[in-house]
């Protein structure tokens, strides 16, 4: 992969490390404005952008101004829950994840994720971050279902989503094109009753709350 320039990452101290949803190897924390250049850098990775179908969906490449607008939109929108994914061991940001379109009467949301750091791939971080985001969506937000859209060329992501609990819901055939080859758009979904909370239910003592209510 061609790296244009190296973005210096702000070392994460324990003080500004808000662990919102803790996992084993990664945790979900807040998106940080000072990391915006890093997010832009990830988004401009052509390999990532083509695999997730980003190029056709947004203006590409992303400028600093695009990045600022995108960050502001994420921050102020009440229909998007966006998290940065941090490596537990180092506190390094490695990607981001989001639930989009929350808060409607539908109790549904679209899931999106990018593990932007090339060195962080192939370690199961994506799978764990997906589970943690689903946990937030089902346990905290009370969603009924979560869905996603993915390209059929992104095999690694499809496997990660399956491991996290998503099932294929369908595919629209030959919906996109890359290098002259048509590829499918794959849709996946998961329902609340199919998901077992890996972290938050225990962490927040939800069973105890229920028992307290019953007595």
């Amino acid at each position: 992969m061609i790296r244009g320039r190296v973005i210096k990452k702000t070392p994460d101290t324990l003080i500004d490390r808000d662990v919102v949803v803790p996992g084993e190897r990664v945790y979900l924390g807040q998106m940080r404005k000072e990391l915006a250049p890093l997010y832009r850098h990830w988004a401009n990775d052509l390999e990532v952008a083509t695999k997730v179908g980003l190029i056709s969906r947004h203006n590409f490449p992303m400028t600093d101004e695009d990045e600022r607008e995108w960050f502001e939109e994420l921050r102020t929108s009440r229909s998007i829950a966006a998290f940065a994914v941090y490596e537990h061991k180092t506190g390094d940001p490695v990607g981001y994840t989001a639930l989009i379109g929350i808060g409607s009467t539908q109790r549904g949301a679209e899931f999106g994720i990018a593990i932007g750091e090339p060195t962080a791939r192939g370690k199961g971080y994506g799978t764990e971050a997906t589970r943690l985001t689903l946990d937030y969506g089902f346990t905290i937000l009370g969603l009924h279902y979560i869905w996603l859209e993915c390209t059929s060329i992104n095999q690694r992501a499809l496997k990660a989503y399956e491991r996290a609990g998503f099932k294929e819901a369908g595919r629209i055939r030959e919906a996109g094109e890359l290098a002259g080859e048509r590829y499918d758009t794959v849709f996946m979904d998961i329902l609340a009753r199919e998901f077992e909370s890996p972290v938050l239910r225990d962490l927040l003592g939800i069973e105890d709350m229920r028992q307290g209510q019953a007595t």
Partner: protein
Amino acid sequence: MSEVDQGDIIVPGEKVFLGQMRKDLAPVYRRWVNDLHVSRTLGIINDQGLPMTDQDEEEWFEAARKDKSEVLFGIYERESGKAVGNTGLSGVRQQNRSAEFGIIIGERSSHGKGYGTEATRLILDYGFTVLGLHHIWLRCVAFNEAGIRVYQKAGFREAGRFREAWQFGGRQHDVILMDILAREFKSPVLQDLLGVPGRE
């Protein structure tokens, strides 16, 4: 307001034709969407978009008019020139040559006459023959059985379904995905009309 002004006939069919959307018809479009019998199968009913005000309607019209990734037509009854619905292709992307189809037959008196099926064929014709799309897809709630039959008759095939992704009437319904490829579609009108050679 003249509902009988024929406007421009852009894609002519037998029973209906596709013409331009018209600002003077915005109150009619608003009335259609505010008819729950019509909008019960549309996304807007659950997106907190109802009831639609005149101002909402104007804003929607302006946004739709300026959005170049969206191709919108009015559907007009051939005989009377009366506006009966709208249809569109959204997310039209040159790079992927793909778009999402949508339709509304807003006049209840125009239901059950095959207008939806013909309008669907006409806009597919526009998408494949004129825009050169490779692929067109749609989303539809599972209880919209009349709609699904129309889409099947027009050439769409089921591509999958999101389970329980739509709440309406106190329960969860599936959302059905359908798609059609250019090579599966035979131009009913435009290929002859424009004198373009057929697909090999």
